[in-house]
C-alpha cells in the first residue's frame, strides 16, 4: 500500500537524520574555522582538555618547553605551567587552572576553559551540530589572521610542537626518598621530583600494595621496617628498566588512596582500621566502635524493614562480617560488613526511626549518639530548647559601641576563620536577570567579612580573594591547611522560577557543631537583612560541607534570580549589612560554644 511506503520513507528519513546528529565526534572551531586537532578532546573532572597546538597554530602563541615547564607566550600574556599542576603563573602572577595540563601521546593537553578565561574568550557549544567553539574577539581574530602569524613565526630550532615532535625533552623523574609520615592512616610520602605515571594494585599471599612508578630508572631505595598496625615494611625493586616498583608489605589487605602532590610527589594513605563495633543503651542509645581514629561516615535511612545504614568512609573492618541481636526497644539486629574495599557498612534493623546526632571519643572508643526520631524532629527540639533557654547571648546589648568592639575583639582574637566565597573564574555561579554574577557579589561580601574579622584580631583563610576558579574539593582543603576553626561558605541562591526569595543556611546534620554554627549565622542574617526566612537546611550531599574537617555552614544570602534581591545583592550597602550579620553570627558562635 502506498501509505505504508510513505510511512517507511518517513521513518527512514527520521532514522538517518537522528543517527547523524547523535553519532560523530565533537567538531572544534576557533572562531568560524574548523580545527583539525592533533589529539582528540578529552574531559577530565568536567573540564575539556585540548591539545596545546590549538594555541600555537591558531592563536599565534609561542611555545617553550623546558622539562616539565611549559610556557605559552601570547602578545599580552605569558602563561607558564608545570605538567600535572593546577597552579600556573600568568604574567608572573600566581593563578589556578581547573585541571592540570597533562602529557598524552606526545601532545600537551591543556584545560580549554581556563585558557579561554585568561584570554577573555567565550566557549560555546552547539549540541545539534556537536560543535564546540572558541568564540574569538574581533581584535584577536584580526591578529590571528594577519600580524600574529608573521610576528610569531616558529623560530628554527625552537621547541614548538610540530606534527612529528613529542616532548622528548622531558627530564627523567627522580625518586628522592620514601618517607613514612605515620598517623592513623599510615601516610607515606613518595618524594618524586618531576612528573611520573603510576599504577597501583593490592596483591595477596602475602598481602601487599604495589605501586609501579614509570620513568624512574635510578637504583632502588633501602628497605624500611615500619611494623605498625598497617604496614610491616616498605621496599622497592626494579620491575623493568623503565619502571621502579615500590612494595608495601601489609599486616592485612586494606584499602588505600593515592594523592598526587603539585610538585610531583605521591602521598599514600591507608584506610582507618575498625576493630570492634557494638551497641549499648545507658542513658541514650549509642553505637560504639574502636578504631585507630575516627573515620567520616555517611548516613542513610531505609524503609521496609526500617533500617539505619552507616557507611564509614576509607575504613577497613578487621573483624570481618558479623551480625548480632540486641535486646532493645528500638534496635533488633546489628549487621557489620566490609561493603566495599574502602567502606565499612553498619546496618541497624529498627523498630522505629533513629538518627545519629554526634560522635564522642570516650575511653578509647568512639560513641555515636542516636536520637529516637528523625533529624527534623531533633532540630525542632533543639530550636525550641534553645529559644526557651535563651542560650545565645544577646549580641546587641546595652554596652556602648566602643565596649562592644572591645568585647568582639576579645572573642575573636587569635581565632582562625575560613571564608569561602562560592564559584569564581570560569564558574560564574548563578546569573541574575540583569546579568549579575553570583561569583562577584559573594566575593564582595566575603572580602568585607574578612576585613571585619581581621580588624577584630582573627586570622582569615580565604579560599579565594580574586576572581579565580577553585574546585569544590580544594576549598575545604585550603581551610584545613590554614588550620581554620570554622568554615563559612558564601553563596547566592537561584531557582528556575523567579518567585522564591529569602535567606537560608545549609549545614551537614551529621555533627551538632554544624547546626550550631548555621543557627548562629541564620538568626543574625534574618534579623539584619529582613528578607524571607527560609530557615536552616540540613543537607548531606554538599561537597564543601562534607569535606570540611571543622564546623561548617553554607550561607545563601538571597536569591540572585529574584528581581528585587538581585538589586540588593549588587548594592555595596546590602553587601556590607550581610557581611556584618555573618560577622556577628561568627562572634555569637565562638562566644557561645567555643
Amino acid at each position, binding site marked *: 500500500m502506498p501509505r505504508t511506503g510513505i510511512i517507511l520513507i518517513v521513518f527512514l528519513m527520521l532514522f538517518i537524520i537522528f543517527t547523524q546528529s547523535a553519532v560523530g565526534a565533537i567538531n572544534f572551531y576557533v572562531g568560524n574555522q574548523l580545527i583539525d586537532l592533533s589529539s582528540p578532546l578529552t574531559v577530565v573532572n568536567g573540564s575539556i582538555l585540548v591539545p596545546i597546538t590549538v594555541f600555537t597554530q591558531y592563536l599565534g602563541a609561542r611555545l617553550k618547553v623546558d622539562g616539565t615547564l611549559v610556557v605559552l607566550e601570547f602578545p599580552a600574556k605569558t602563561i607558564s605551567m608545570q605538567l600535572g599542576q593546577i597552579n600556573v603563573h600568568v604574567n608572573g602572577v600566581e593563578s589556578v587552572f581547573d585541571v592540570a595540563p597533562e602529557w598524552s601521546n606526545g601532545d600537551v593537553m591543556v584545560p580549554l576553559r581556563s585558557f579561554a578565561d585568561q584570554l577573555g574568550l567565550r566557549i560555546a557549544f552547539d549540541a545539534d551540530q556537536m560543535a564546540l567553539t572558541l568564540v574569538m574577539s574581533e581584535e584577536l581574530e584580526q591578529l590571528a589572521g594577519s600580524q600574529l602569524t608573521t610576528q610569531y613565526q616558529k623560530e628554527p630550532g625552537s621547541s614548538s610542537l610540530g606534527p612529528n615532535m613529542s616532548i622528548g625533552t622531558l627530564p627523567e623523574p627522580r625518586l628522592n626518598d620514601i618517607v613514612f609520615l605515620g598517623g592513623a592512616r599510615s601516610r607515606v610520602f613518595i618524594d618524586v621530583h618531576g612528573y611520573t605515571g603510576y599504577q597501583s594494585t593490592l596483591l595477596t599471599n602475602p598481602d601487599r600494595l604495589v605501586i609501579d612508578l614509570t620513568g624512574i630508572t635510578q637504583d632502588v631505595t633501602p628497605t624500611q621496617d615500619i611494623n605498625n598496625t598497617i604496614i610491616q615494611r616498605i621496599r622497592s625493586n626494579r620491575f623493568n628498566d623503565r619502571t621502579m616498583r615500590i612494595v608495601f608489605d601489609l599486616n592485612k589487605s586494606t584499602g588505600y588512596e593515592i594523592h598526587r602532590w603539585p610538585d610531583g610527589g605521591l602521598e599514600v594513605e591507608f584506610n582507618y582500621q575498625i576493630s570492634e563495633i557494638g551497641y549499648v543503651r545507658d542513658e541514650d542509645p549509642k553505637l560504639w566502635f574502636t578504631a585507630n581514629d575516627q573515620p567520616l561516615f555517611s548516613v542513610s535511612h531505609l524503609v521496609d524493614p526500617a533500617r539505619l545504614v552507616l557507611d564509614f568512609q576509607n575504613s577497613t573492618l578487621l573483624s570481618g562480617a558479623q551480625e548480632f541481636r540486641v535486646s532493645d526497644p528500638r534496635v533488633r539486629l546489628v549487621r557489620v560488613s566490609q561493603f566495599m574495599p574502602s567502606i565499612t557498612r553498619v546496618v541497624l534493623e529498627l523498630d522505629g526511626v533513629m538518627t545519629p546526632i554526634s560522635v564522642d571519643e570516650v575511653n578509647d572508643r568512639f560513641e555515636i549518639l542516636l536520637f529516637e526520631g528523625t533529624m527534623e524532629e531533633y532540630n525542632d527540639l533543639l530550636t525550641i530548647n534553645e529559644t526557651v533557654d535563651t542560650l545565645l547571648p544577646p549580641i546587641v546589648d546595652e554596652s556602648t559601641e566602643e565596649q562592644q568592639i572591645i568585647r568582639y575583639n576579645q572573642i575573636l582574637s587569635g581565632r582562625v576563620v575560613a571564608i569561602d566565597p562560592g564559584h569564581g573564574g570560569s564558574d560564574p555561579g548563578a546569573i541574575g536577570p540583569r546579568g549579575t554574577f553570583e561569583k562577584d557579589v559573594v566575593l564582595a561580601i566575603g572580602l568585607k567579612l574578612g576585613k571585619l574579622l581581621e580588624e577584630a584580631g582573627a586570622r582569615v583563610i580565604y579560599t579565594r580573594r580574586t576572581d579565580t576558579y577553585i574546585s569544590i574539593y580544594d576549598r575545604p582543603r585550603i581551610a584545613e591547611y590554614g588550620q581554620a576553626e570554622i568554615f563559612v561558605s558564601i553563596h547566592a541562591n537561584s531557582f528556575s522560577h523567579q518567585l522564591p526569595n529569602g535567606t537560608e543556611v545549609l549545614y551537614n546534620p551529621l555533627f551538632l557543631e554544624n547546626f550550631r554554627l548555621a543557627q548562629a549565622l541564620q538568626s543574625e542574617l534574618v534579623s539584619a537583612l529582613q528578607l524571607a526566612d527560609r530557615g536552616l537546611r540540613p543537607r548531606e550531599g554538599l561537597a564543601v560541607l562534607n569535606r570540611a574537617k571543622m564546623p561548617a555552614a553554607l550561607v*545563601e544570602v538571597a536569591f540572585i534570580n529574584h528581581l528585587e534581591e538581585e538589586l540588593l545583592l549588587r548594592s555595596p550597602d546590602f553587601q556590607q549589612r550581610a557581611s556584618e550579620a555573618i560577622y556577628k553570627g561568627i562572634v555569637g558562635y565562638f562566644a557561645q560554644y567555643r
Partner: protein
Amino acid sequence: MSDRQRIGALLLVVILLFAGRLLWNRLFVEEPTIATAPQLYTVYFSSGNKTYLMPEYRFGEGTISQRLDALVSGPQHPNLAPLLPQGTRVISYEESADLLYVNFSEDLLLHHSGGSIGELITIYGIVNTLTEIESVKRVQILVAGKMVSTIAGHVDISNPLVRDWSLIGSQKL
C-alpha cells in the same frame, strides 16, 4: 439491476461492513483493553514557583528509557517546571546491579541556572525519578561520558546518589 451490479453492490456492502468493523475495533474495542490494565509510573519535576519536587503520574510501564524521556521532554502539567537545563539530552544509560549510570549531554553542566536549591532540585529530581524503579537503588550521574564533581558548584555527584525524600513536596504535607 443486473446480476453483476447486484454482486458488485453486495461486495461493496461486505467491504464496507468489514472496514466499519475494523474502524469500530480501532476506535472503541482496542482502547478499553489497554485501559483495563492501566499502569502508572511517577516522574518528578520542579514544582514551579516552590522550591521542591512534585510527582507527575504517567501511563505506561515506566521503563528506564520512558522515565528518562519524560525527564528530558518535561512535565505535562502547566504548573510544574522542567528539571533539566534546556537542550539537555540523555546520551546513554547502563544498569549494573542496583546502580544505574545515566550519561547526560554537557548541557546539564553548561546551561544549568545554578543556586544550591536549583542544583538540588535538578539532581534529586533525576535520582528520585529513577529510584522509583524497584531494581534501582543508586544513580550515578555522568556528563559527556565522564564522572564530574558537580554540575553547578554545590552538590557532589562524583559518587552514586540515593533517594532523598526531603525534597519531595507532598511528603511535607
